[in-house]
């Protein structure tokens, strides 16, 4: 389709115009590719494979806590596992968890937010539904999300799915609020009235005239959010030792937790530095990409940016001014920070 092709070209041009978002874009693409490769063909990337290597647990203690070397670029841990392999093996899981939680929160919370924002006429069925949705989100938003998540994990008991559920439960209300706010800002604009005057059915107005105009800030927020989910999930896995059983499945937060509990960090710095760096780089990549997307998704800034890039460049190779001059329009919400 020509339109999507144009959008992709526009995406590339705009991202190229802003060095930071370009870095974010490249990182996200690389991370996703690596995650796919690790899942589909681990032997290509992972030097010390996982599944057939159950014997690794009984590896001689002499292999434990090796500092980074040629054979083990990130060193080895106390269980004699190669950290480089472990971090790579954990990538699909951590990335998948982040995308899944943010995605379910986006779709679920988004639908609730659309309903709560659009059908809010008091005294109607929609008005009541809207009130119930909003008061429920208020209850969830009253607690700091990390604390609530920890409490839920404590109640549900250890396990990967329990932690995911806990994060999800604390996560969806933000999307309800975000989407509802955007709907309220848009639903009384003249073009929505004009669509109504043209006889467009209400549901079609909601999707085509309201949702379509609020999609951009939501997509941007989602992209930024993937990193935040990752950090929150890792934080819970870090704070509650053993909530995700170490070392299988491999997970960055539980790696940190394991080392933190059992060994002096100053002595084996690589065992903390590399998993932390993995979390940091992944979260940062999505953050940078989100900022870049904000510029791309607004047709006005997109055209301006594409033109500014298409214009003959002056001798310097510095970033184009247009890429960074767009004001921050995405609502941000306070979230507790990671480890």
């Amino acid at each position: 389709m020509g339109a999507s092709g144009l959008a992709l070209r526009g995406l590339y041009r705009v991202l190229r115009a802003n060095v930071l978002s370009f870095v974010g874009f490249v990182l996200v693409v690389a991370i996703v590719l690596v995650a796919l490769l690790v899942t589909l063909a681990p032997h290509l990337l992972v030097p010390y494979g996982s599944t057939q290597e159950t014997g690794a647990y009984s590896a001689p203690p002499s292999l434990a806590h090796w500092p980074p070397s040629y054979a083990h670029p990130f060193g080895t841990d106390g269980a004699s596992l190669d950290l480089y392999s472990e971090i790579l093996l954990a990538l699909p899981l951590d990335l998948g968890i982040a995308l899944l939680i943010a995605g379910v929160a986006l779709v679920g919370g988004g639908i609730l937010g659309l309903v709560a924002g659009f059908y809010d006429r008091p005294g109607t069925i929609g008005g009541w539904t809207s009130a119930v949705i909003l008061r429920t989100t208020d209850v969830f938003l009253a607690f700091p999300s990390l604390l609530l998540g920890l409490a839920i994990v404590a109640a549900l008991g250890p396990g990967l799915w329990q932690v995911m559920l806990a994060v999800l439960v604390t996560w969806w209300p933000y999307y309800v609020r975000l989407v509802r706010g955007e709907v309220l800002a848009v639903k009384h604009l003249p073009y929505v009235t004009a669509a109504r005057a043209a006889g467009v059915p209400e549901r079609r107005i909601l999707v085509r005239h309201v949702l379509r105009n609020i999609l951009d800030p939501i997509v941007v927020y989602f992209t930024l959010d993937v990193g935040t989910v990752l950090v929150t999930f890792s934080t819970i896995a870090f704070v509650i030792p053993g909530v995700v059983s170490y070392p299988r499945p491999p997970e960055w937060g539980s790696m940190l937790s394991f080392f933190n509990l059992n060994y002096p960090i100053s002595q084996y710095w690589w065992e903390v530095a590399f998993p932390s760096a993995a979390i940091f780089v992944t979260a940062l990549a999505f953050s940078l990409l989100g900022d870049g997307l904000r510029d791309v998704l607004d047709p006005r800034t997109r055209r301006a940016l594409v033109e500014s890039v298409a214009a003959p460049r002056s001798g310097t190779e510095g970033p184009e001014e247009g890429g960074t001059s767009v004001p921050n329009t995405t609502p941000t919400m306070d979230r507790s920070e990671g480890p």
Partner: protein
Amino acid sequence: MSEPILSVEHLSVDYRAPSGTVRAVDDVSLTIPSGRVVGIVGETGCGKSTLAQAIPRLLPEPPARIAGGKIVFRGTDLVGLPARRLPLVRGTGIGMIFQEPLNSLNPAVRVYDQIAEAVLIRRWREAGVLPSFRGGAEPFDYSHRPLPEPSAVLSRPITPGASAMESARRRLPGRRDVREEVLEFLRLVRIQDPETILDRYPHELSGGMRQRIMIAMALSERPSLLIADEPTSALDVTIQAQVLTLMKELIDEVQASILFISHDFGVIAEIADDLGVMYAGRLVELGPVAEVFRSPRHPYTKHLLRAIPERYKSDGPLAAIPGAVPNLAHPPPGCRFHPRCTMAQAVCRTDPAPAFRPVAAPASGGAHSSACHFAEEVATLP
């Protein structure tokens, strides 16, 4: 004499605010006969836009509320219609052109898709894919069209000699020939090379262009009644003249019934057949344009007409009406114009307000009505 397309009977619209209820439209009655253009003039805040939006029931309710009266559109009272059925009347029944072409087009949708949506809604309704007023229990039988269909003339100037097969094919739902129809409507509103703007977003077009697209959208649903709510007010004077010329030509071509809201007597004089004058929520005078201009029957109309700047007049200040528009939250008793009226007498200050009554049946056809106790004496006003 066929039944009028629209008859508004004693319509009142309230706005509820925390500070109290404001009656923005008070006891307004008017009819729009088939194929006639009715213009409404009035000052800012006199309720003319509220009236325009109340007719297709577009006002957000609450805060607005229809306090009384009837809006009879092709035999159906829209006031009594449940909210879920209202969309069926809009678009193909009552089309609308808005005041703000800058904001009335969806910024995320390309020009082609905006107009195609309108075209498709009409086609789907005609083909029965989308519900419309159809069937015995329905208030309006769309299929058998009891009234002469003035908007059927719409496509004539641009599709000369379209065969019966062609028009039958057009009625089929589908996207196949939507593009051609969209282009036709863009040409109808005098856009040269319409192909070049199909892929544009609204913000890439000028204000005049956007208003033309709005007009094309409204016309492409072939409405029985078109409501134009100050379509030229937001445009600058040159573009205003262009759009006005366009609308005048279109009115001749389309032969639609139109309710044209404006604050500009010149615009109304150019376009309308009948002229209504609103003041502080009330319709104070209604009659054929020439008749109202020649012999106004309400002092307010007379004063307004006198306040129109004459082109070559250079001596002295412009004529103005003394006083200010009343606050609609606390309107004066009796005739609302009496505090500013030079003819006011004791009877004007007492309730009830002067009735809206026919004052003369001029030869040109159509009654001339006024809401003034002294309608007959207005002519003597200096």
